[in-house]
Structure formats: structure tokens, C-alpha cells
């Protein structure tokens, strides 16, 4: 069994890749943004319905590698129904783990811990963070 299969492609990751959660366009988003990694062709659009600083609804569309899709799917699951502040805090912790600045066990990541192995593959870190970048941009981009 190769290392990458263990580190990167755990069952949970593959499950989210094959059946991503919250995949699809929102009917009436209040915020949205696109993330793109031209080098590898990953492209995700994140849409949000935010009311009273709460993420009522989140959806994403796009295409990308297993790491990108799984990460965005787990992200969507984790932030929907919570506060914008909690989403921002989770993004900071997840990013810190993927860039090797924080140990996964200390980051309270829940299911996202299954993606911690990405920190060992520098060329894949952008994949793991693409949806999150789109989320952060979306928070700054109210739909007019």
C-alpha cells in the first residue's frame, strides 16, 4: 500500500470526492466567489446565504481533484448552520494545519483532520485550500 493512498486518499476523503456534500447552485445567494488554480485546472465557486452573521446555507459548484473537492465538501458541511465568525476561525486553523504551523490534534478539525496528510505534499496544499480561499472571498463579496 503506497504512502499517498494512506496519507491523502483516506476512505473519508474519497467518499467526499465521490459524493460531495452541498454540491449545487443556491437559488438566492447573498455572497459568492470563485477560486481557481490555473496550473491544475481546479475551479470552485462557493455561494452562501448569510443572515444575521450566520451561514444559513452554503453550496459549491466546479471541478477539481479529489483533494480540492473533498476539502470543499467537508468545509461546506462544517460551516453550514454556524456563525461567520466560526467559519473564519475554522479556516484559520485548517490553513495552519495544512501549512505545517499547527498540529492536527490541536486544531479541533473534526472530519477535516482526514485531510491533514496534505501538509506532506506541498504541490497539493493549494488544492486543499482552494475552496476555503473561495469561502473567505465570498464573505467579502455580497451579491448585488
Amino acid at each position, binding site marked *: 500500500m*503506497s*504512502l*499517498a*493512498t494512506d496519507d*491523502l*486518499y483516506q476512505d473519508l476523503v*474519497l467518499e467526499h*470526492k*465521490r459524493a460531495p456534500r452541498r454540491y449545487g447552485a443556491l437559488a438566492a445567494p447573498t455572497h459568492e466567489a470563485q477560486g481557481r488554480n*490555473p*496550473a*491544475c*485546472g*481546479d475551479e470552485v465557486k462557493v455561494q452562501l446565504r448569510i443572515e444575521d452573521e450566520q451561514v444559513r446555507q452554503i453550496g459549491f459548484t466546479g*471541478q*477539481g*481533484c*479529489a*483533494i480540492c473537492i473533498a476539502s470543499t465538501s467537508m468545509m461546506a458541511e462544517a460551516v453550514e448552520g454556524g456563525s461567520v465568525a466560526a467559519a473564519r476561525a475554522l479556516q484559520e486553523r485548517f490553513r495552519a494545519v495544512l501549512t505545517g504551523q499547527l498540529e492536527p490534534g490541536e486544531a479541533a478539525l473534526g472530519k477535516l483532520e482526514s485531510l491533514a496528510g496534505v501538509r506532506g*505534499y506541498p*504541490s*497539493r496544499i493549494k*488544492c486543499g485550500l482552494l475552496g476555503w480561499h473561495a469561502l473567505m472571498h465570498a464573505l467579502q463579496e455580497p451579491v448585488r
Partner: protein
Amino acid sequence: MGDRLATLEAGCFEGLAQRVHGAPLAYLDNAAITHMPLAVRQAMDAFEQRDRANIHRGVHALSQRATDAFEAARAALKGFAGAGPAHELVFTSGTTDALNQVAFGLSDSGAGTPVLRPGDEIVTTALEHHANLLPWQLAARRSGARLLVLRPDAQGRLQADGLARLLGPRTRVFAVTACSNATGERPPYEKLLALAAEAGAFTVLDAAQAMAHDVPVLGKLDCDFLAFSGHKMYGPMGIGVLAGRRDALERLAPLRVGGGMVEWVSEDDAGWSDLPARLEGGTPNVAGAIGLAAAAAFIDAAGRDRVAAHVEALRAHAVQRLAALPGVTVLSPQASGSAIVSFVADGAHPHDIGTLLDERGIAVRTGHHCAQPLLACLGVGPTTRASFALYNTHDEVERLADGVAHALEALR
């Protein structure tokens, strides 16, 4: 099926003998960069040890030797590219530099009226690497010329009648690749260049992917400007060639101005040197030029036809195995004269396939390969690309196909 090319001596390519993640390296990313044989590295080391000096005919002994070595490399490469008395050869830092030189040279108005005038037309193709597209986008903007793009058919092939429809009385430039780096497709460039030349256009050939195994012969082509890189033909990085008809090269305004390319300089004006010096401003990569000439000699010693037959057989083998895998589409499967195989797979992204192959010591490239317009024309996103050199083997092709099969199972 042949194995490692018989002429390779042990230790010729030491870097390939390493292990990656516990498996023997299978280096299948030669379209990005090839490894250098010992003979090339030795030629460069010998220069650096004995003859290292700046060129441009200094009066001291080492400078003379360095100049002689540089000029000998120039002559050798002219021979390799099939240049004749009407051609000249200029050293650049690579294909990208060479193509930028041509596009700038035809469109710049800094030192006089440029060749390209407002309303003139530049034709290039959707098969191009960005290095043979972006300089033309800028040349069009700079000069007021129009940029037209010849699109491939549904199989990714360029057709001569498609080009004929785009050529007209205002066509001044036609630029095309000798081999698509993204798919391995070999356009009928001899015919396309001839059509464009007949229409009165300057012709530009990007030969970066062809020089290692399918060398265009300048003397037999309607080719004004030929560009290629050392690092894709068993030579060093940071060196390339712009070769072509002397009367076409004469028309280029220099891109890199400064030392080594002037006859005289005053405070507010300068007079350029003759070719080739005019287009070689600054200290060149002299060791690189020597290494590139050694690489050309290495290819000829191995035999161009033998190298071509070997890499083409590897490609055909790879196409056969990959196309048989479920849900895999090989791009340009019919391409002949190709050392590059590119594919997409349902439910498996190239990035993931590439990482899983790397885990088995197999090096391939994934993504858009600096050819976004082509992949968009073909309706595909990023691809996984394997590309072969004379040191690759059929066993490595089997490892590639087995590795892809395993990756597909793991990901789907």
C-alpha cells in the same frame, strides 16, 4: 519490443538511476525537460575548467578560446538544424526567449518603422504552447495588427484548407508548432509553412518538442524563424536557438540591447552590430551553447532515426495500454512521429493520478501544459501527460499503465 536503446552506456544518465519513494525512478516528463548525458556535462565542465572567459574577442588567450568554442557550437548547431549559407543562428535563453525575440522584433517601433503595420494580420494556431501565442498577442497590440487563430478539427488536427481560409493579402506572419506539447500532435507543418510563405508571410516554427527526435531541416523548409531549447534535447537549461533566413533575421529589431551588439555608442544613440551579434546582447550562456552542441552530437551519434523509432514505439505502446483502461480517453491517439501521450480519465483528476504515480516512482506531468486554448478547443480540462526520451523503456510504459490502472481503482 525493444528495451533501453542499445547505444546507451552504463552511467550515461546517472541521475535516472535513483529511487523515488522506494521504487526505481521512471522519468516520463521529458517534454518538460530531458536529462543530460555524461558527454554533455563533461563538455560543459571542460569549458568551465579550462576556457572560462567572456567572449567577444578579448585579446587574451582564454577569451579567444571561449570565443572559438562559442562559434564552434554555433557552426555545429547550424549543421544539426540543416541550415545553409542563407541562414544564420542566434543563441537565446530558450524557445520562449527566441519567440519573444521574433514577435518583438517584427512589431517594435522603438528604432524605426516595424515590419508589422496597423491592419496587418498575424496567424497562429490553437495548438500552440503559450510561448508561441502570448508574444503574438502582444505583437498585435503593439503594432495594431490583427491576431487570427487557426483552430484544430475535433481530433485536434490542423488542416491546410483551414489555414488557406485564414491567409490573405494582409497576412504578415504565420507561427506554428512542429509538435504540440499538450497532445503530441504533429501538424503537417511543412505544408502549412509553404502555404503561408506563398502568401507572402514570415513563417515561424516552434520546434521545442521536435528537436530531440524529429528534427526539422531548415534547408528544406519554407521557414524564416526556427526556435528551440537545449533542455528538451538532452542539453542544458538556459540555452536555446533562434535560427532562420538571414534576410528575415535582419528585419528584427533587437529585444535585448546593451553590450556585445553595437558598433558604436554615443550618449543619445547607438549603431547595432551585424548578425548574429545584434540579437545576442549581453554575456551569453557560453557553457550552455557548448553543452547544446554536445547534445546535438549525442543525438546524431545515437542516430536520429533510431531515437525516433524508439520513442515513437514507446508512445504507441503507451497509447495502446492506456486507451484500453476503462473510462480513459487518450488525446490525439492517431498522432504519428510523437513521443508524448496525454489522457483524461472519468472520475479521476490528473492531479490525483499524478500523485499516485509519483508514489510509485513514476514522473509524469499534470495540468494544462501551458496550452489552455488547445485543451479548451478539445473540450477537456487538465490532462495527465507522459513523454518519452531515448533512455526510457517499454518496462517503464508497463509500469505507467499499471500505475494508472491502480490509481483509477483507488479514486473511483
